[in-house]
């Protein structure tokens, strides 16, 4: 199974465009990269696959000159190079498209594109007409549509990404590194992105994609290097490779996706009722425009959609955490409690659990211990007239750590030392420990390794079995398809589609996530 790419390249007798030779990078006692070696062929799409914390980002930072390797070296076009800074890397034709775009919001696309390497003349200063000409040529060559006089802040995420790529191309990059390029794109935009990347490949550019999504690798990449715990665990040519092979190389064991049954329970009692809920920010911007839905006990209602389409506002209005410039209209009721007029503390006391999207920012206190985090929001349960019941807390923490297989397994270990997956397990452990009547979950598996994803999905279904009403907001379509009983698609603050388990229609879903309402949603697959 373990095919070595180096054999293939020696067969074709061609110098690889890029090579990592025993690159090692150490942080403290932790090896982020340990003797990482691989080769990337010219004019290919090469995927670097691995879970979070496997060392992908470190490898790419080394390649982009942001970090120097402690040992080993990079070979570019058969010559050993030392990259001291990103400028150095750019000068050698390496371009990086970051996950969080590095664009100036208030300036036009054109200004962003030429920033730092403007065509210049003494008479005119920046030669805008010349720059425009260069770009029209570039766009024509790549069959791209870019509104280069538009300001970045008015552009969609996909368009911003295209500008980032154009920026790299304009700087004559031969090697393009894309860091998790599809994380923020809708399915339509993803298809478009890969078409574009293939066009670039045809022109002889070498493209490196950092990802943890197996499907993308199988569909679009030519070769893949799998990283695990900082070392290369496998290297493949993609042709003839199966999903299971890749998953096994990535997580080190077999991968069984969790799949929900179609629920046939008839005694569904609505726990959360939302009716024509509108959230207005500032004077008149409607972040959420009249959404209505119900969540019943023992039911998972999913909300799909590209991020930033009103999901945040929906969750904030349901948890009493709206900002001061956000106003609500409509109705949101949890059992008898009016959520729009209640304090967070009262809502939680009533039996709601909330698993926020930004777990490090507002789901956990990283510099506190695991047991202190388990007490967060449940002070009443673990205290007696103002005294902390530390023995009880300790035993509860030990039980939970065992139940969820949390590492590190000491209740008094700092949470910062735990991995993303283990941190998320702590959040789930805390919130499920209360046997909530209503569970709001946002992006439960973002940045979580595959092994923990499985645990988390099982626990969500478990909570459903116990009768919790669950609202699941996620931008991972696969996750929703495997868990949700009902699915709403959200775009620009509105629901543009409604699907029921057993009748999910992938095509419609994809269209709707792009904001296009289809007439016959829910047609049988």
């Amino acid at each position: 199974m373990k095919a070595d790419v180096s054999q293939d390249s020696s067969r074709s007798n061609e110098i690889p465009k890029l090579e990592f030779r025993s690159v090692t990078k150490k942080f403290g006692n932790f090896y982020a990269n340990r003797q990482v070696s691989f080769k990337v062929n010219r004019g290919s799409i090469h995927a670097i696959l691995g879970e979070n914390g496997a060392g992908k980002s470190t490898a790419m930072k080394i390649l982009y000159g942001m970090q120097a390797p402690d040992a080993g070296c990079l070979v570019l076009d058969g010559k050993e190079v030392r990259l001291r800074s990103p400028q150095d890397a750019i000068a050698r034709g390496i371009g990086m498209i970051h996950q969080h775009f590095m664009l100036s919001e208030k300036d036009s696309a054109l200004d962003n594109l030429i920033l730092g390497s403007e065509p210049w003349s003494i008479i005119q200063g920046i030669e805008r007409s010349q720059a425009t000409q260069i770009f029209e040529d570039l766009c024509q060559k790549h069959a791209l549509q870019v509104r280069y006089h538009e300001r970045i802040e008015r552009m969609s995420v996909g368009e911003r990404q295209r500008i980032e790529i154009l920026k790299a191309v304009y700087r004559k990059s031969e090697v393009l590194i894309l860091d998790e390029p599809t994380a923020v794109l809708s399915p339509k935009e993803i298809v478009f992105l890969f078409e574009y990347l293939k066009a670039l490949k045809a022109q002889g550019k070498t493209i490196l994609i950092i990802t943890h999504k197996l499907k993308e690798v199988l569909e679009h990449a030519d070769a893949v290097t799998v990283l695990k715990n900082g070392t290369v665990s496998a290297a493949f040519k993609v042709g003839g490779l199966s999903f299971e092979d890749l998953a096994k190389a990535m997580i080190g064991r077999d991968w069984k996706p969790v799949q929900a049954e179609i629920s046939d329970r008839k005694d569904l009692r609505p726990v959360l009722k939302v009716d024509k809920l509108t959230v207005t920010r500032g004077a008149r911007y409607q972040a959420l425009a009249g959404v209505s839905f119900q969540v019943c006990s023992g039911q998972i209602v999913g909300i799909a959609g590209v991020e930033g389409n009103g999901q945040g506002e929906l969750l904030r209005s349901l948890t009493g955490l709206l900002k001061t410039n956000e106003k609500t209209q409509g109705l949101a009721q949890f059992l008898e409690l009016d959520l729009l007029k209640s304090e967070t503390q009262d809502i939680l006391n009533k039996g709601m659990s909330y698993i926020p999207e930004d777990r490090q920012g507002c789901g956990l206190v990283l510099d506190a211990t695991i047991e202190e985090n388990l007490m967060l929001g449940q002070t009443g349960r673990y205290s007696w007239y103002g005294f902390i019941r530390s023995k009880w807390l300790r035993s509860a923490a030990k039980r939970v750590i065992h139940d969820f297989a949390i590492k590190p397994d000491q209740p008094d270990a700092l949470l910062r030392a735990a991995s993303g997956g283990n941190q998320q397990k702590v959040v789930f452990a805390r919130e499920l420990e209360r046997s909530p009547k209503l569970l709001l979950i946002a992006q439960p598996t973002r940045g979580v390794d595959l092994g923990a994803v499985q645990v988390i999905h099982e626990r969500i279904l478990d909570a459903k079995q116990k009768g919790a009403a669950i609202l699941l907001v996620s931008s991972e379509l696969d996750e929703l398809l495997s868990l949700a009983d009902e699915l709403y698609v959200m775009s620009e603050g509105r629901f543009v589609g409604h699907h029921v388990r057993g009748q999910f229609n992938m095509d419609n879903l994809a269209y709707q996530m792009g904001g296009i309402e289809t007439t016959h949603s829910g047609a049988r697959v």
Partner: protein
Amino acid sequence: MKNSFYTMLAFLIGVLICLSIVGFLGESPMLFLRVMYEASFASYEEFSELLYIVIPLTLTGLSVSVAYKAGLFNIGAEGQLVVGAIAATAIGILIPAPAPFSILLAVSGSFLAGALWAFLPGYFRAYGGSHEVIHGIMMNFVAMALTGFITLYLLKDSGSPHPDTYAIRTSYEMSPFSWAGISIPKSAWIVSGALFSYVLISKFLTVGYLFKMTGLNIQAAAVYGLPVKKAQVFAMMLSGGIAGLVGSHEILCVTHRFRIGFSPEYGYVGIAIAMLSGGSTLGLLAAAGLFGVLQKGALALDLETDRITRDFGMVIQGILILATASGPALKRGVNSLKDWIELRSMRIKI
């Protein structure tokens, strides 16, 4: 354990730097060390005097630590202790009360006054979003002006040529007790009580948990319904109250009357002590002791040496704060040196 080792190491390096500066100035380092030591430890009297400096420093250090626990920076301890002192004085002059009650009254009065003085910075931070440092500093100035007014126009002792008030009633005075030859001010009980409460709160009470969570991640605490705004105001008031206790120490145990400018910036030194202590109670006592020794020794330097003045005490304080604060950096430095050596040897093997 390892962290404190590097902190000690950094501290020793700081001491060595101080000594080399002393040598550079043409004074014998050994003489310097002896003067510093003898200023505080040569006799029981000297040691008793040291206690009179260490007690207020412990209180202000504790005050800053409490606020810091909840993520707030109480730079207003100086104003709070002055207001606490004027409150203790006013109670001591105006209210006739028999002995144990009088003390209780004055101590709680100074605590409340300090707490009230810290209320505004805390309230504006929690509910208005402005920064407590700005308000804290401004409240310091207001405190100086207010106590100046009260001293000069309301409670001025007409028989005294100094800017001070009448003396407090004798039932309010706390005379020191003597233990193993050392005379100890009774405000030692106040400090012990404050330290005990601090340990109780931070280790065993939910309030301490609330402070800690608010300080470490206020967003998460708010998402899970903790009353973070109340926590901020309360922590600030508690901090102010502890600083106010310095006032009752000063008035009841030392001067028995309010004199303008009695505090040699205890409040500001408290910030350095809190930072040095690293959040632990023992560390707090050690840091306050260190600063006490330095302040007391600086006075002796003037008399005992030819080339070093008391201002050199400030230089030593600065160097030692810098050195101790760089303990973690020293640890990182040593570790990366170890890594470097290890990787070199690895590379040779490759």
